[in-house]
């Protein structure tokens, strides 16, 4: 039982990382129907930016805020300079997905060129080795911080989407684009903002993940794919689904790693996606409308 709790707790910490990544993916998918394959690479770029700033002896708080802004600026620039022209030329949905893949490749190359491919350890104010005991369960400061920030960011995000005028505009835009335009909502800026916000959530996840792993240009690939899995699990067009999916995936994966086999911890996540897609393609909380000829 203790072991079970222990695995579950450490699963929740990784799960909140997945939830943050999934939230960004779901946000973009919901408003633009684009699967953002560059999400992981934008995150990596942001994290490397923070790493460079920390190397310049900047205070970590400032460095992190700048990195978050850098990531969202990147996404917004991509939206305006590539996606909008592509949409003007009537790119298909698949075409737009491939465009994000192109951006991902570019960022990946640039990060490896400027940041180097050697894994580096990421300095962080929270420690991975300092641990707290709750009863018989052990949790590290970093995991606790990660879980906390995941919850906090999700809460802020919820308030933004549900309780503000901006959130209302975002919901309207994702619900029905032409109608939102008719109602006078500046949909283009709203969509750009969604991209920026999604990237910001991604970079946040990256910043909290980097100290747990080593930082190299590919460190985000797997969490990014898991984030995808989480978003699918919860339903790609549902924001609460992304959070629930992320936490479930994190815990399930940790339990599978602990009780079944550590080698198949990663494979497990992808088996979950395939199963979910076969049984309930719209995910746990998602709703996808039917299509007609």
């Amino acid at each position, binding site marked *: 039982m203790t072991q079970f709790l222990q695995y579950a707790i450490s699963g929740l910490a990784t799960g909140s990382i997945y939830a943050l990544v999934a939230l960004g993916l779901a946000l973009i998918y919901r408003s633009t129907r684009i699967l953002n394959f560059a999400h992981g690479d934008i995150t990596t770029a942001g994290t490397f930016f923070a790493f460079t700033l920390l190397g310049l002896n900047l205070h970590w708080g400032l460095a992190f805020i700048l990195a978050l802004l850098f990531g969202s600026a990147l996404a917004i620039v991509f939206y305006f300079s590539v996606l909008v022209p592509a949409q003007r030329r009537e790119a298909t949905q698949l075409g737009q997905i491939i465009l994000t893949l192109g951006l991902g490749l570019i960022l990946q*190359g640039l990060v490896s060129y400027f940041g180097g491919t050697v894994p580096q350890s990421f300095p962080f104010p929270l420690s991975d080795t300092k641990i707290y005991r709750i009863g018989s369960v052990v949790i590290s400061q970093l995991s606790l911080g990660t879980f906390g920030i995941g919850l906090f960011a999700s809460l802020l995000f919820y308030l933004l989407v549900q309780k503000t005028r901006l959130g209302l505009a975002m919901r309207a835009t994702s619900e029905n684009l032409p109608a939102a335009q008719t109602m006078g909502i500046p949909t283009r800026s709203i969509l750009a903002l969604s991209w920026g916000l999604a990237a910001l959530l991604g970079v946040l996840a990256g910043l909290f993940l980097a100290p747990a792993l080593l930082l190299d240009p590919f460190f985000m690939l797997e969490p990014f*794919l898991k984030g995808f899995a989480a978003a699918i699990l919860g339903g790609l067009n549902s924001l609460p689904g992304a959070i629930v999916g992320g936490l479930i995936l994190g815990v399930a994966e940790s339990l599978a790693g602990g009780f079944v086999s550590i080698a198949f911890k990663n494979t497990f996540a992808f088996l979950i996606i395939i199963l979910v897609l076969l049984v309930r393609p719209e995910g746990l909380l998602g709703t996808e409308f039917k299509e007609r000829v």
Partner: protein
Amino acid sequence: MDLIESYQEELQLIRKPWTRVWVGIFVLLLLLLPWYAPEHITYIATIIFIYSIGVQGQNLLIGYTGQISFGQAAFLAIGAFTFGHIARVGIPWPIGLLSGGLAAGAFGLVVGFPSLRLKGPYLAIATLGFGIAVYQIFLNFEVLSGGRMGMIITKLSPLFGLPRITFNYYFNFLIALVFTLAMYNIISSYMGRAFIAIRDNDIAAEVIGVNLTRYKLLSFAISSFYTGIQGGLYGLFIGYLEPNMFTFMEAITLFVAVIIGGLASVEGSIMGAAFVILVPQVFSAYKEMVPVVYGVTILIVLIFEPFGLYGRWFKMRLYLRNWPFR
């Protein structure tokens, strides 16, 4: 576009006599390549032939049937390791190659099943998940893959007293030629038309009598058969296999080749294969920049030339044919 007057003409591979001459010269140049080009070039050309098979398969799936797949590396791995195991027992290569392709095709059928229910982005994720799961299974089951140490495959011993590199060149050239001709036949048969109908609108295709289940699965099976053959040939050519040759990046490379070469065109697939092989060669001093080149090319292609290198080539040909009029 040409005026086509009969079905016979539609089925012809080459329609104009001059095109026949140009293609003839091109094939002749390719045939003579090992005799005038340096060894290095022959080697790269061989890899391009091997890759063009898999890219054609991928293009059949993405370009013709419109089913997106990011799991292509899995089929490569399955084809390659099946071939490797069979070759190790001492069974001759044609059987090994065929069973590598068939094993990949069988798994293609399995992956095809989700495609009956899933569309677009969802299918992309399912195939991506499959690709990564297979990679990790190969990485963790040493029995299947020889583990991280890899698996040694006996290379073909050259026949007719040819140097090894020349022999490999002709061997792979022939196989690639056979598969390319087969691909032309597939896409101009009923099957190919059914694939295109599914891509354009699957529900409408079903209404006019295309058996959706059968043709979607068939498309997956043929595509992964081609990819499996590529895997087997690559193993035979390099003489060595390890799981890390089949990462997610490899699937992306095949995907990039299809997009850059040109969706729904066999010639485009070959051009795309040449592109993804040549770019790392040209940029070998700046290895990190290779993905950047891919990415920038994708952006340019998708925004300015949606039919890729083949589309550009087609326009150039049209321009030259009509010169000096436009």
